[in-house]
């Protein structure tokens, strides 16, 4: 779930991290009132769930409350990357001595949160990491063991920060890490965290993303931020035609479950895969043996013939996919014979020869004897549990890529 900046700032504030005396409004006249309360130069920032605000004219500086009102009126009318602003944030223009970056992000590969810190704040951390890697400190921490401020201190020190800045930033990064854990975040970022000329530190911007599965546990926070259930996860992901087709097939029948993803996949190996982590394992196995999947999928929960058929048809309809690999780890509730019928039916209805189209069928488990009879009838290469997922994936890659070469 994504948060607007004004919500992210509130989350940061609740965690005990110093923030500026900002105000959020959807009304230009109120922006003037907030600017007057702040009493000095202000920054008016569009509240949109997209990047590129500054370039698009969504961030403007004002010296007077009247100017703040005029800027707010303009920004409230400004669409950025197709996003209407939720409102504007009126922020005091800070007397910045130096900007820093701090963030905590979920590292999927390490399966642990990763702290990041840099003394080069205000710009993308990816750019800093690439151009000035010695200015970025990193450190994983556990989601189970207690968090220690010392871990935050090490990360900051690794970025070359010493003295008062190190002492002041340590509890802030520690609180950010704790906030990340307490609120089921995938991303908790403050960029920049600014050192002001009076020596204090304050968060000038924040980005937060909560794990969707954590939303149930975080109802109190979501409610406190004034976010209604109708807003959902606020994700702007646009499903592909393939993904929509698979969803429609899944929704049409309550039996079993199928999912299909192809965002980021541009290969030619169609995958009908699943069962107890089998999808991830098999996708990795295909890739690691040089294969290029055309999609990711999950099939399980004892789908109907129609559902298995629908998934196979959707995969075979993708550009460049001539063959599919039908592979699962050992199944118990999903029936081998039903899946076999489904994928064969898909081939036949598309006018394809199942023996040529199904590169390999490796689903051992419930009703496999019946399934193997069906596969025999259509001359399809299949294997039982004596063939590992790795080997089955390798055979599929060799068959599909070998013929393409």
């Amino acid at each position: 779930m994504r948060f607007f900046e004004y919500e992210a700032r509130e989350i940061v504030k609740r965690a005990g991290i110093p923030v500026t005396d900002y105000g959020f409004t959807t009304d230009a006249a109120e922006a003037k009132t907030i600017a007057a309360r702040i009493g000095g130069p202000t920054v008016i920032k569009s509240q949109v769930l997209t990047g590129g605000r500054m370039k698009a004219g969504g961030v403007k500086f004002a010296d007077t409350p009247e100017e703040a009102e005029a800027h707010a009126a303009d920004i409230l009318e400004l669409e950025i990357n197709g996003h209407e602003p939720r409102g504007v944030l009126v922020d005091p223009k800070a007397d910045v001595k130096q900007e820093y970056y701090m963030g905590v992000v979920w590292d999927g590969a390490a399966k642990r949160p990763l702290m990041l810190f840099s003394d080069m704040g205000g710009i993308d951390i990816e750019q800093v990491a690439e151009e000035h890697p010695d200015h970025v400190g990193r450190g994983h921490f556990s989601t189970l063991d207690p968090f220690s401020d010392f871990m935050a201190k090490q990360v900051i020190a690794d970025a070359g920060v010493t003295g008062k800045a190190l002492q002041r930033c340590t509890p802030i990064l520690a609180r950010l890490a704790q906030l990340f854990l307490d609120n089921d975040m995938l991303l908790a970022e403050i960029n920049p965290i600014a050192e002001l000329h009076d020596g204090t530190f304050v968060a000038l911007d924040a980005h937060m993303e909560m794990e969707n599965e954590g939303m149930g546990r975080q109802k109190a926070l979501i409610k406190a931020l004034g976010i209604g259930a109708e807003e959902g996860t606020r994700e702007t992901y646009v499903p592909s035609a393939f993904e929509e087709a698979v969803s429609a097939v899944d929704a049409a029948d309550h039996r079993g479950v199928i999912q299909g993803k192809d965002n980021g996949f541009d290969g030619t190996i169609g995958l009908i895969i699943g069962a107890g982590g089998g999808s991830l394992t098999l996708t990795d196995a295909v890739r690691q043996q040089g294969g290029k999947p055309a999609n990711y999928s999950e099939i399980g929960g004892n789908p109907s013939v129609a559902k298995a058929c629908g998934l196979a048809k959707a995969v075979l309809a993708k550009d460049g996919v001539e063959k599919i690999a039908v592979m699962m780890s050992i199944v118990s509730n999903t029936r081998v014979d039903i899946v076999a019928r489904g994928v064969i039916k898909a081939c036949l209805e598309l006018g394809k020869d199942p023996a040529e189209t199904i590169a390999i069928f490796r689903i051992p488990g419930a009703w496999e004897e019946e399934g193997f009879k069906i596969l025999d009838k259509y001359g399809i290469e299949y294997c039982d549990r004596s063939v590992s997922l790795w080997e089955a994936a390798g055979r599929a890659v060799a068959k599909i890529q070998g013929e393409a070469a």
Partner: protein
Amino acid sequence: MRKDAIFIGVEVKDEYTSDPALGAKLNEVCPVNIYRGTETGVDIDEAAIDECVLCGLCYDAAPEGAVAVLKLYEDGAALR
């Protein structure tokens, strides 16, 4: 009456096809709705035949020899 799909065939002996009570019973027990009970007897939904899960409940619900489920991928072998 016999109807075949790709993998499965279903047969209801002619002498039972006009039995509405049997049609209702088969409709009730079949988990994938292959049989439809009509006012005049039994009908078979051709589109559902390949969803047959080979449970045999139709055999149990019908008089002996009244229905047959045929595995077309096994040279038409009957389920029972």
